[in-house]
């Protein structure tokens, strides 16, 4: 086996970070292989962004060890970032520049020569679907275009590792699917993708492996399907409407587990057909029958309380 392949793209052990009275990262371990697409999931405030910042060497951990592309972080983080691209959560494009100027100026931060960057710009714009927009001002771009430009900017140094903090938050479905498509393409090229998200669908579609974070800790980790299989019954029935309590009283025995959230009952079982049959007697109740997904695992593990 090639020795280089054995070096993890990113590894972290025992990461801890405290801000004032609250410890936002409380003992995180990560091991991400080269070429892997890894998702860090968690509700707001779970510590995802802080974990990424620690791994990039942008803030110092109180405890723990990090290696990014084999280099110790934060000691040699700057060197490691030569081969890393970052798509930040908040848009940080330069509003005073055109689309192409944004790429040119950003490439210079990697020590690239102007000629070299200019040679890469057409391909980057093509990739981002912005080939016709090279001279456009940032203020004229849609949200999806801005996000794609941020992605193109993160690729200007042809990185091995791409770190994306909530890459599709705030995008409409078309724009989101286009970003997903591009991320798949990058994964196909063998790049390592590390992304945070709170869209379970996104994680399920893109990531070979996910870790669910809550309260500064990783509380579950594995392939999305394996997590669903390990933590939750395969079928879900979402039921709401008048008479829900009465029906639940009768159907309880037919279901493995029931989660009540306000007016809706989330009913889990290996086979929900008997429960559906029992719903025939309750014409006022509305229901949705679907397979269990990562979101069910996520909500089971992190609870249904609001996190803002």
């Amino acid at each position, binding site marked *: 086996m090639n020795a280089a392949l054995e070096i993890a793209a990113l590894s972290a052990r025992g990461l801890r970070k405290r801000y004032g009275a609250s410890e936002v990262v409380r003992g995180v371990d990560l091991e991400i292989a080269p070429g892997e697409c890894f998702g860090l999931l968690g509700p707001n405030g779970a510590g995802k962004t802080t974990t990424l910042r620690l791994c990039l060497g942008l803030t*110092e951990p109180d405890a723990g060890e990090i290696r990014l592309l084999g280099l110790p972080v934060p000691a040699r983080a*700057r060197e490691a970032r030569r081969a890393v691209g970052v798509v930040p959560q908040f848009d*940080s*494009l330069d509003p*005073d*520049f055109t689309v192409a100027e944004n790429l040119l*100026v950003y490439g210079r931060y990697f020590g690239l020569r102007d000629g070299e960057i200019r040679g890469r710009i057409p391909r980057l714009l093509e990739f981002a679907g912005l080939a016709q927009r090279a001279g456009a001002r940032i203020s004229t771009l849609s949200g999806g275009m801005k996000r794609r430009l941020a992605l193109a*900017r993160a690729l200007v140094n042809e990185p091995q590792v791409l770190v994306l903090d909530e890459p599709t938050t705030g995008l409409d479905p078309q724009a989101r699917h286009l970003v997903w498509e591009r991320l798949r393409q990058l994964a196909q090229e063998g790049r390592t993708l590390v992304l945070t998200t709170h869209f379970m669908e996104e994680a399920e579609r893109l990531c070979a492996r996910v870790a669910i974070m809550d309260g500064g800790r990783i509380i579950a980790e594995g392939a999305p399907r394996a997590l669903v299989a390990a933590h939750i019954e395969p079928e879900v029935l979402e039921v709401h409407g008048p008479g829900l309590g009465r029906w639940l009283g009768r159907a309880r025995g037919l279901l493995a587990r029931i989660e009540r959230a306000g007016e809706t009952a989330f009913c889990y079982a290996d086979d929900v057909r008997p429960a559906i049959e029992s719903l025939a007697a309750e014409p006022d109740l509305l229901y949705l029958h679907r397979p269990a997904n990562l979101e069910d695992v996520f909500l089971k593990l992190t609870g249904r309380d609001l996190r803002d």
Partner: protein
Amino acid sequence: MRAARLYAPPAFSLRFVPVWRRHFLVWRKLAVPSILGNLADPLIMFFGLGYGLGAVIGTLEGTSYFAFLAGGFVASSTMYAASFEALYSAFSRMHVQKTWEAIVNAPMDLEDVLAGEWLWAATKAFAAGLAMLAVVAFLGFAAWPIAVFAVGAVALVGLAFAGAGLAVNALANGYDFFSYYFTLVLTPMMMLSGVFFPLGMLPQPVQALAQVLPLYHGIELVRPLLAGRAPEAALAHVAVLCAWALAGYYAATVLTRRRLLQ
């Protein structure tokens, strides 16, 4: 962050160059209105006071009041240009546009960003000072060739106020914070540094206070140079301005690390 790293002297690297070039590229798009904006305020004051008060005062320290004001305004317009850039503009890039955050995601350190900001604010102040110098020279208030050394003094004033401004920027929680700095620090400094009248007219303790202000030392260099004389104790003035520049930049480094790297 451990104290040793928080207070370590800033490491200097040529990596500041792409940061400086970024700011330059933005400025190039707006250069003419920017320079005119930097000139308009001091020129209005200069002509207003020069004609109005000048008629009352006649001559001051052996020259026309216009000639007296010229040195003061070259230095003070440099001070304001440096401060605006290091406060409002740097704060936009640090806090509002997240430009700094984008840069440190690349293989750049916060110190590279700060060095770029510092030297850029000093550059922009230098341009503003030179523009003012050109105007007063055009009006006949610069005695060449000695006056050419005023260019060096302008550069030092820019570095000193850029460093101090970035230190204040690191403490700011919004744009409003800067009006305190302008009102409570820079405006009194204008009064205490001999822009409008000779320092000797102020009480002794106030004069002593003025001796530590960077603007005072800038004017003590620029004014005699414009009049074609070598400044008295020139090296001492240069040393104080250098000390302000370095101390300001160091304070800016420590305070910005504390703000952003924790």
